[in-house]
């Protein structure tokens, strides 16, 4: 049973986002995703200042099993990247919702919450995938 904080929004690509007080959103991958992908060995981060488009590639996480894209869940601009992951990519495994955040994005305009999932909706998706 994977951990699922109640204060986050989720995507069907197994990513989470947190609305920060400054209006930016932090983005990472879920506990389910890190468990499925296995030990991370490398994270390819975007450049700060780069524009991202909802659904487009933003970063790549590479585990011992596979290299997977991290998609932007919202339109916006990258304002910060988690450089600490360059030396310690396994932080995503140990703390996916905390120190293992990947990118902070300044959203362009209002976030379309309808396109994102509540914790309950994401839990339902996980249950379906397990079934």
């Amino acid at each position, binding site marked *: 049973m994977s951990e699922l904080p109640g204060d986050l929004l989720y995507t069907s690509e197994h990513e989470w986002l947190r609305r920060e007080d400054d209006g930016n959103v932090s983005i990472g991958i879920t506990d389910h995703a890190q468990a499925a992908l296995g030990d991370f*060995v490398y994270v390819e981060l975007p*450049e700060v200042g780069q524009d991202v488009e909802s659904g487009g590639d933003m970063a790549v996480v*590479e585990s011992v*099993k*596979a*290299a997977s894209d991290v998609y932007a869940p919202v339109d916006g601009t990258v304002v910060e990247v988690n450089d600490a992951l360059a030396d310690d990519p396994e932080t995503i495994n140990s703390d996916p919702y905390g120190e293992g955040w990947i990118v902070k994005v300044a959203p362009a305009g209002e976030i379309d919450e309808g396109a994102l999932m509540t914790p309950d909706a994401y839990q339902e998706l996980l249950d379906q995938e397990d079934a």
Partner: protein
Amino acid sequence: MPFIPHTEKDTEEMLEAIGAPDLDALFDEIPKNLLIESLDGVPDAMSEMAIKRLMQERAAQDGAPLCFIGAGAYEHHVPQAVWDIATRGEFYSAYTPYQAEASQGTLQTIYEYQTMITELTGLDVSNASLYDGASALAEAALMAVRANRKIKSGRILLAPGVNPTYEKVAAAIAGTQGITFERLAMDSVTGNTAAELPDDKEPVAVAIQHPSFLGTLEDVDRLTDWAHERGAYVIAIVNPTSLALLKAPGHWGEAGADIACGEGQPLGVPLSSGGPYFGFMTCKQQHVRQMPGRIIGRTTDLDGQTGFTLTLQAREQHIRRSKATSNICTNQGLMVTAATIYMSLVGFHGLRSVACRSHQNTTRLIEGLTALEGVERVFEGAYFHEVAVRLDRPVGAVLEALANRNILGGFDLQPMYPDLGNAMLVCATETKTDADIDILITALGEILAEGKGRSA
């Protein structure tokens, strides 16, 4: 006889199960206008006996000419043991060793190959090989664009001595992905990159071939530092034999080349009418994630025993599909096996002897040729084992006259470099004796004198 295990009855049952009337119905989504009704020019099937006869006759037409052509593929002595070992059953499969527990020997061979190629090029990591030198440049270009994210121009500058065929292949593969290739200007005296370098190009990478296609030796330190000052990566295209004498790409300039690639054929692979050959590629450790293909590593198993494994393959096609670092991420397993055995047998000192003797033979050849009336060097300066010479008349007819004497006298540069005039490349590797070299010099002297006599 096609090796298809299905009987007609099997096929009928399968078609019935999926509800298709016949085999053609399985392909009916292909638009009719794309189908070719008949293949004109493709002859009817022949029996095995007839085709063997035909191929033997065609092979005999090649004869055993005395070859002074290089231009990217070089005739070197291949010790008999190389292919005796490479064609043993244990090695004679180029298939990718995905199953580590059943492929330790193959994996170790590739690991040893990678070790030798990184030592030769002076860089940190090597992949398990690519198709050939030309596609290796294409892959290096794509890799440089992926890795050098600070520069978005997609423009790769090529030194004038980059093999024109490599440029064509690289443009065909990488050109559809927004990558452009532009040539730096040539200095007409040295054949190398002109002293004055452009300042407005914002190159993402600069590719330098050394020795150049025209046989000259570039000022690689200057070009490397110039590229790095502009934030561009440096792609070195090198001849592996030459690296026994010349500075390794990893030591070019202040920081060294970022990526080295080239044609591996000189390392134990016979010319065999143009292939199969193999491409090699090495890079600095920091770029390894963007390197195409796979890397074999040495590790320790649960019992503490040394073992070999596919260390880097997460960005390969079979895992990453369309997002793979390359769509051609196989390797040339058999050619690499031969190259590894070749390098092991000759060793570094042997390779150095091959390189030295090739240089000496080429020097002897050039001294003899340029002593003839109507032959001069095209460029000044140092060379490795290949030199451009200019004749006093069109090259094609002269080469034909030499071929009639069973001599492949050189590579005609006129179609590729019309500005150089009646120019051709000549190369004498360690396989040539003094007598061989004298045969070419004498024959060319006679042919040029004959022509003079007629025209006078």
